[in-house]
């Protein structure tokens, strides 16, 4: 008879859920996780990781096509979409096995099936698990963390059918590269797929309802990205709305409204990337104090839902929909359950955001506009990668680093980057913000030469009129 009573049950094993479970195990809690699909959740199986594998293929392909600019020759450069996808699936599979190992190592019991709250018995939370064969298992726990994540939002009348109209899930395993593609939504997901398919030769059109692409990023970054993508041959329509999709046999005709005019565009495939909704259904929330607002669970700063001993974390609880935010929230919720002292709630403004298009985009903290709206007097620094030796040597001089400081206190309010490997660089500014450094420490810090990171130093110097290399 398998164990059915735990200190903590985590429903969902994405980067929020499995990290929370490991932290709980470290703190000595008897822990179980419930997963209806694959360990590791969307992130690992259908999101962050497999897309990075795809984009790596795109990047290598791009480099090979431009081999001569490096003094190399590569003839008959081509690709096999099936193999590109296969590699991506293999990477996901390897990491999925890794999570399985981590669960075993931390003595966390894994239940396969859909979990939901099932009332209270003897002061313990009951959790009902139903597996694929409809077999039910009853579990109990002192505390439950809901970590069921989110899924693609679907616009009415434009629901994905998996054949002609894709969500991220179908877009990740394309049987072939479509000749033409319409991407609805220019957030991180939309732009990454647009970039991937454009690199492999698709005619890509991106439609964004707001007046700029990557609308959560700083305006300078959006503008820089737009130029870079247009140079690659991507078509970007902002302040535009897809009104209707008419499906043919192997094509879709979209009615796109922009500037008061409606035009038609016929493409082979459509990717819908218009946001995310929380997986709040079938969790047994009815009759509990768990509140759902706009498809997301409402929590306090520790992840507590208001229902005794029930916490929620990650995408289920709303934006920013980021794996690393979910992991942090998971750790905080578990530490709160354990009653650890000196806990600090997650400061969302210290959560970096990354988009893995070409060129990459990364940011942390406030945009210049948001800082001004909050009443800060700002000092802004900018440094283009064209002034960075390493970027030129890499053959990737397109990009910009922008810093926003509070003029009075020297607080680094935000940092915004576009260019080579900026997703790997942004953590430097993240640490700076978390440690509450001012411009003085950032100026004193020694950045190694020759690296891309020097551009980060220069962008700080520029904010104070001390930039060297421009």
């Amino acid at each position, binding site marked *: 008879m398998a164990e059915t009573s735990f200190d903590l049950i985590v429903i969902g094993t994405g980067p929020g859920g499995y990290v929370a479970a490991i932290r709980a195990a470290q703190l000595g809690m008897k822990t179980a996780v419930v997963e209806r699909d694959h360990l590791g959740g969307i992130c690992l199986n259908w999101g962050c990781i497999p897309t990075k594998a795809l984009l790596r293929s795109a990047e290598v392909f791009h480099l090979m096509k431009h081999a001569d600019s490096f003094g190399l020759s590569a003839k008959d450069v081509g690709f096999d979409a099936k193999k590109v996808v296969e590699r991506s699936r293999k990477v996901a599979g390897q990491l999925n096995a890794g999570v399985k190992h981590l669960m075993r190592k931390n003595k966390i019991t894994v239940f396969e099936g859909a979990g939901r709250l099932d009332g209270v018995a003897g002061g313990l939370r009951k959790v009902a698990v139903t597996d694929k064969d409809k077999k039910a298992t009853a579990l109990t726990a002192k505390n439950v963390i809901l970590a069921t994540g989110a899924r693609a939002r679907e616009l009415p009348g434009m629901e994905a059918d998996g054949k002609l109209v894709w969500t991220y899930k179908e877009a990740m395993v394309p049987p072939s590269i479509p000749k033409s593609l319409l991407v609805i939504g220019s957030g991180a997901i939309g732009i990454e797929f647009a970039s991937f398919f454009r690199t492999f030769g698709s005619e890509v059109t991106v439609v964004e309802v707001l007046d700029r692409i990557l609308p959560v990023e700083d305006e300078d970054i959006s503008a820089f990205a737009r130029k870079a993508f247009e140079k690659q041959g991507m078509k970007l329509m902002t302040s535009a709305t897809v009104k209707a999709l008419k499906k043919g046999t192997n094509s879709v005709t979209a009615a796109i409204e922009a500037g008061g005019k409606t035009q038609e565009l016929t493409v082979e495939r459509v990717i819908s990337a218009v946001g995310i909704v929380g997986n709040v259904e079938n969790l047994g929330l009815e009759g509990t104090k768990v509140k759902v607002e706009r498809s997301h669970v409402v929590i306090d700063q520790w992840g507590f839902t208001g229902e005794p001993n029930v916490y929620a974390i990650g995408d289920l609880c709303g934006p920013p929909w980021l794996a690393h935010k979910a992991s942090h929230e998971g750790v905080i919720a578990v530490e709160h359950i354990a009653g650890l002292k000196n806990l600090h709630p997650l400061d969302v403004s210290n959560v970096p955001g990354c988009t893995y298009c070409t060129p990459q985009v990364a940011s942390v903290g406030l945009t210049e506009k948001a800082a001004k709206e909050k009443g800060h007097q700002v000092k802004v620094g900018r440094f283009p990668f064209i002034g960075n030796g390493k970027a030129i040597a890499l053959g990737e001089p397109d990009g910009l680093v922008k810093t926003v400081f509070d003029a009075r*206190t020297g607080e680094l309010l935000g940092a915004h980057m576009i260019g080579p490997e900026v997703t790997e660089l942004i953590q430097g500014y993240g640490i700076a913000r978390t440690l*509450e*450094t*001012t411009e*003085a420490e950032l100026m004193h810090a020694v950045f190694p030469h020759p690296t891309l990171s020097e551009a980060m130093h220069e962008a700080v110097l520029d904010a104070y009129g001390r930039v060297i290399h421009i």
Partner: protein
Amino acid sequence: MAINILMPALSPTMTEGKLAKWHVKEGDKVSSGQVICEIETDKATMEVEAVDEGIVGRILVAEGTEAVKVNAPIAILVEEGEAVPAGPAPQATPAQPPAAAPPPTPPASAQAPVAAPVPSAAPAAKPAPPKAAPAARDGQRIFASPLAKRIAAEAGLDLARIDGSGPHGRIVKADVEAARKGGTARAAPPAAPGERPAAAAAFPAGETRKIPHTSVRKVIARRMLESKQQVPHIYLTVDYEIDALLAARQAINAVGEKSKIKVSVNDMVIKACAQALRDHPDVNASWTETDMIQYGTVDVSVAVATDRGLITPIVRNADLKGIGRIASEMKDLAARAREGKLKLEEFQGGGFTISNMGMYGIKDFAAVINPPQAAILAVGAGEQRVVVRDGQMVIRTIMSCTLSADHRVVDGAVGAQFLQTLRGYIEQPAAMLL
């Protein structure tokens, strides 16, 4: 060459103090070692001696000034014939802090884990410039984020008076902003007398007064609040029959009359507790987040009421001392406690406290634990009560005692065993001689 005399740090935790009294006035000649002023610190009044010779050129901090920061210049010493500068001497040459009499000594090593480390050298050799917010707290580095430092400096807040909520107590931006909003880090605003509503005139009453807290009162308030909020108290009450103890006391005092030794019931309770603590090292202990600290010596703190407030001088190694020696030490400690003249090491530390309110006719009470100690024994009045012995009502002198113990350290059964052992010593005082 003018020399700044700085406010000395008389204890490892002192951040500010009251300049209670000047013993010199401007123009007086002072020699090294001469007492120049008295400073009221957290717990006691201390005399401050001059380190250098010279003439008191200017007194910068008036007598009776509260909350004088450690290392702030309090006077300027000049050489004979030298012009007196208007303000503190420039900082180019390190000014000398006056020597505190006596210098703070570190607590016994066994107790070190719960006491703040004592700065190895004399407190900061030069006064902090007024803009430098991270002034040393007890001569130690204050951990604060660069941003917190800058905001504090800009707002004129003293980081030493702000509690940090970051990792390992680091002061972060949010702490400084909370202090700025709450005004907690600033000196308290002058007390404004509240306006009395007209209707109150029908019932004329005495004037409502606001009395500024003394340093001692503040420390008592803070420590008692901390104790009650953070230490889970458990209370165990017992009745001890003390007829044998009273008889023993009479016998001891009869013998000691010639040598003028007079032993009180309390002195005997101190000795009995010391013996019992030696038998129960798990009560002579402290809780820390990582470890249980069991003290290697039996040092008993004894609560003494003074008109400045409560203070707890320590009878060190009480288990090794005879009752007569404990009595004479206690007499001396209590007298100097009432004068506010205890040395730091005489009231800082200790592993266990006794609070006796028998002399006020209190029958039984529960005392607040004196952290980081794990237990305090509240001693009531010895009084004749009718008790049942062998089925007969008899009259015995009974003294009720209540042990308040930190439940993280002392479980109920452990406390009860300690009280049982203590009963052995109190009810059969000869056992204390073993």
